[in-house]
């Protein structure tokens, strides 16, 4: 069995090798949270983001089709009307890596975003709101995918 610790250690070694050989330009910028984007599940993503345990909330909205014909383009919306939102996350549970996008919310924009995502198979999609006071709220919705959009 491969523990999380081992995985992290290994990826650090690989990253080091790549960096040494100059083959690693894509993750040269600091702000990008690579660990979070490689995490496989909601819990792992939140851990990588340094957030606490999520609580389901009806104040967070997730929108999307019930059935998506084409998994390569699934329109999704995520948002909340609550004040004091720090980040909005969109996740697809059964994708190879769960995290789709992170939006860092400021006071000048509404915490409501629409984008399009790729989905490998039918799955639950999550909208997660990380609040300024450390609370983590989420909403989920099932989207059925007729044709997957990840492999090929």
């Amino acid at each position: 069995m491969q523990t999380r610790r081992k995985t992290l250690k290994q990826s650090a070694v690989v990253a080091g090798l790549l960096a040494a050989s100059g083959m690693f330009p894509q993750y040269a910028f600091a702000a990008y949270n690579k660990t979070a984007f490689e995490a496989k599940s909601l819990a792992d993503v939140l851990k990588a983001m340094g957030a606490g345990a999520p609580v389901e909330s009806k104040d967070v909205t997730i929108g999307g089709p019930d059935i998506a014909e084409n998994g390569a383009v699934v329109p999704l919306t995520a948002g909340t009307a609550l004040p004091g939102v720090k980040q909005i996350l969109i996740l697809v549970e059964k994708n190879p890596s769960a995290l789709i996008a992170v939006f860092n919310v400021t006071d000048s924009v509404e915490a409501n975003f629409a984008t399009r995502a790729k989905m490998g198979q039918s799955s639950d999609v999550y909208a997660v709101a990380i609040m300024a006071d450390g609370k983590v709220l989420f909403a989920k919705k099932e989207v059925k995918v007729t044709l997957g959009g990840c492999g090929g």
Partner: protein
Amino acid sequence: MADPMRIRAQVAGDKATVRVLMAHEMESGQRKDAAGKLVPAWHIAEVTATHNGKTVLTAEWGPAVSKNPFLQFVVKGAKAGDKIAVTWKDNKGDTRTDEATAS
């Protein structure tokens, strides 16, 4: 150099709805080419939006955002004539900025 983005900022009241369509391949890193080799991931990693030069939104994206990504957000306190600029940067370090005037 990548193709230009299409940005539209529509003012309603004191808010502007901004719709952005970026031109990008967004290769997921899961796909295999004809020779069976994995196509490396190539995707937009960071998106920044500014309103009259002030940053109002930053986002981090994974490879699972669709090809030619679409993004919609609402800027508060925007009025007609305001400049909305959007910048993206992909994981190869390529970057592009486009600007639109709210109307």
